[in-house]
């Protein structure tokens, strides 16, 4: 249990998707104009990351890894399908996004309308595929760890986008040099937020 909390906290603060790996920057820059929409997108990303990372973990463990097909028949014990992982992961992500969309529409229609177009667009958010690829690279021991990592990364992304949206709402009233307005200042602020987040690096978990 302690281990799970460690992975969760680490993926929120230390290995933050935005500040440490720049994943999902495109939607981060495009959607962070108001706090309301970025909260919606952030929640959707937590949702999808929390679903896809464990599913991809199972896929990796029972289908793709070197010798993973041994449970089917001993003849398949030396089959290595790792090279297929990109295409399989992206297929899982695209279908999971579709599934999450349908579930949310059925059971939480209010949330569904507030997320709107952002849910389907998450399929091509690099943070989601990045989550699965990092899961593969770091070789988590079991599905609980993978889930903790997925949820933590989602929460980290959520914090980052809500933070920058709040700052951008305020910065409209400041006198930024004209060429720096919009994109430029957003980059520099994200850099400063990243430096602030680096102070978590010293924490030993």
């Amino acid at each position, binding site marked *: 249990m302690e281990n799970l909390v460690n992975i969760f906290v680490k993926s929120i603060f230390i290995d933050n998707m935005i*500040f*440490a*790996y*720049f*994943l*999902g*920057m*495109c939607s981060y*820059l*495009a959607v962070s104009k108001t706090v309301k929409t970025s909260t919606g997108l952030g929640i959707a990303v937590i949702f999808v990351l929390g679903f896809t990372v464990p599913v991809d973990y199972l896929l990796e463990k029972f289908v793709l890894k070197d010798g993973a097909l041994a449970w089917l028949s001993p003849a398949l014990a030396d089959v290595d399908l790792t*090279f*297929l*992982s*990109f*295409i399989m992961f*992206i297929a899982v992500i*695209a279908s999971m996004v579709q599934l999450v969309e349908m579930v949310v529409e059925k059971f939480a229609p209010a949330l569904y309308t507030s997320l709107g177009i952002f849910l389907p667009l998450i*399929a*091509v*958010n*690099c943070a*989601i*595929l*990045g989550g699965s*690829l*990092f899961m593969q*690279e770091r070789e988590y021991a079991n599905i609980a760890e993978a889930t903790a990592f997925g949820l933590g990364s989602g929460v980290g992304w959520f914090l980052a986008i809500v933070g920058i949206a709040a700052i951008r709402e305020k910065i409209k009233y400041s006198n930024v*040099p*004209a*060429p*720096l*307005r*919009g*994109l*430029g*200042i*957003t*980059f*520099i602020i*994200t*850099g*400063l*937020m*990243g*430096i602030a987040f*680096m102070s978590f690096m010293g924490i030993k978990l």
Partner: protein
Amino acid sequence: MSSEKEPLFSAKNLKLLKEPLGSSNPITVQVLGICSALAVTVKLKPSIVMAISVMVVLAASNVVVSLLRKMVPPRIRIIVQLVVIATMVILVDQVLKAYAYDVSKQLSVFVGLIITNCIIMGRLEAFALGNRPWPSFLDGLGNAAGYGVILIIVAFFRELLGSGTLLGYKVIPQAFYDAGYMNNGMMILPPMALVVVGIIIWIQRARRKDLIEN
């Protein structure tokens, strides 16, 4: 193929190659493909490899999607595009693993993330779906070059100021270090990539007033 005879490098086609380098640069103006652009720029060598990989993937998938554009129903085009891109990325990844293993390890997940790089999806949607293969190929090359130029500029400054080297060779003379010069360790850390790109945008927009946002 086409009834009208247009020279391969007509003015219109050359424009496709040149514009993304400046006035419609994918990173600083169209805001596409930032994700991977920042993470790989600590050193010059992985950035160059990354730029070449993106160029291969973008040009090849632009051509393939452009060839398929009349056969694919619009409803399922996204998934078709993803499959085309993913196939190209797998090819590039396997080649890198075979011939440049250490660089491929340094790039880690970012080769795979070319799949969700918005430049590729963006150009397929915006250009390849509506144009013939040859202009699509040039558009792919041009946009990937615009992406690569920014990548290489950022990596140049980060490696020079952060490690005092370029492509792994020492360029800052030992005498400087003896006199008290120190590498700026800050440049190696992720946040500085954002600040360097911010400054590039600042300089570009200060020179071209038409790009300024309100």
